[in-house]
């Protein structure tokens, strides 16, 4: 079997762009998911009546349906209701829907892991509830959630490959296009695998390093 290196080289500019799209979708989705999760976690932690039920329902729905089906629903079903959106927008919406649910649980668990005694201790020196949240609860909850937060960031980035299904030109879509056009299946899958390893593995390592640094800086050991 021949391995067409020249062909691979000719596709690299396109793959470079695809990596850009993957990172763009992934990073935007991480930020929007985090925003959604912050609001949801606050609702859950403060046990807001009614809204709490809505958030719980959302989390269960989002975590127990496949991402691909969510994506098809947003991309194909919403237009029939008169909402026409691009593949890119559908990708961001769906990724946020899924990521928001996972991160909600991560943040809620983090806040609930802060010992109650820390709250009493903060109140006993006269901190207001807002100051307590800002100076005591959030920093500690953040540190407690860091490992699972970072794991979910990497998870979301990897899941971006699913949005190739609605023609967002990220790495998997680009791979499939080249395979369909030139039948270079072996070469293209090799490139895709290599890109995934080069993209996600260093990221995982970087996040682990940051996590260690942050916790060291905060807790001093």
């Amino acid at each position: 079997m021949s391995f067409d290196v020249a062909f691979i080289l000719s596709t690299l500019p396109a793959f470079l762009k695809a990596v850009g799209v993957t990172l763009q979708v992934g990073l935007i989705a991480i930020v929007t998911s985090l925003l959604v999760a912050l609001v949801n976690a606050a609702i859950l932690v403060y046990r807001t009546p009614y809204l709490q039920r809505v958030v719980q329902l959302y989390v269960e729905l989002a975590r127990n349906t496949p991402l691909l089906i969510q994506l098809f629903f947003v991309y194909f079903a919403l237009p029939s209701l008169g909402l026409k959106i691009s593949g890119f927008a559908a990708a961001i919406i769906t990724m946020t829907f899924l990521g928001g649910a996972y991160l909600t649980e991560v943040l809620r668990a983090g806040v609930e892991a802060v010992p109650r005694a820390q709250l009493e201790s903060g109140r006993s020196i006269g901190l207001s509830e807002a100051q307590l949240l800002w100076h005591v609860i959030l920093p500690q909850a953040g540190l407690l959630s860091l490992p699972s937060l970072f794991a979910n960031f990497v998870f979301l980035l990897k899941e971006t490959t699913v949005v190739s299904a609605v023609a967002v030109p990220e790495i998997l879509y680009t791979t499939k296009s080249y395979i369909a056009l030139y039948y270079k299946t072996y070469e293209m899958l090799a490139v895709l695998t290599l890109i995934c390893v080069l993209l996600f593995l260093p990221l995982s390592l970087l996040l682990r390093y940051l996590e260690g640094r942050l916790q060291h800086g905060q807790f001093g050991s």
Partner: protein
Amino acid sequence: MSALIEFEGFNKFFGDQQVLKAVDLQVRRGEVVVILGPSGCGKSTLLRCLNGLESADGGHLRLGGEELLAPGTDWRQVRQRVGMVFQSYHLFGHMSVLDNLLLGPLKVQKRQRHEALAQAQALLARVGLLDKRDAYPRQLSGGQQQRIAIVRSLCMNPEVMLFDEVTAALDPEMVKEVLQVIQGLARDGMTLLIVTHEMAFARAVADRIVFMDAGRILEQNDPESFFSNPQTARAQQFLEKFSYMESLPKKMPAKELS
């Protein structure tokens, strides 16, 4: 002179259970009051009510003549006047010692940083921990953390300090360093309310012993009278448990093997 702290007919319930029953207690400015009693007698709850960590269910509670149980009481204000130290220190684990000490003065009292810092360092030096100012709580021993927790409360310049079994989680060597700090405060004339099981310490530091059982104050007296001549049967029984340890016979020397 009227009392600085005044509980009058003070009641507290946890669910159906009444944990404080019509408690009357007055503490003068500068007085050191030690509250003794068996576990679950309500002594910790009494302190926590004074700091607003528990809400009251009737009666009166006055601080400097001001009714605290009236609606609209600003507990944040009260807590700056009434410092509280807990059994398990509860320092903020994500902050250095200095940040722990400065959080209240800077964020709650909005004081100048250099002034609050100078006070924090002076108090740290006083408890012998100035060299630990940049350490994190988990790098410190229990006794060191507890002394820092005391300084954290003192940095708010409170009128009263509440100590809730602050040596109960410490080993005997560390108990000493913490008790010395409290004794120093007592000597300075600070108003202290102390819940403890360290009987010898109670006897040494208290102006008055308050003995509680099942949510009531059964007896109040100066330490010498209380320890040498408790008035109630319950207090006698309570004190016997402590003297029992001291009166245990020494273990017989093992017979030498022949």
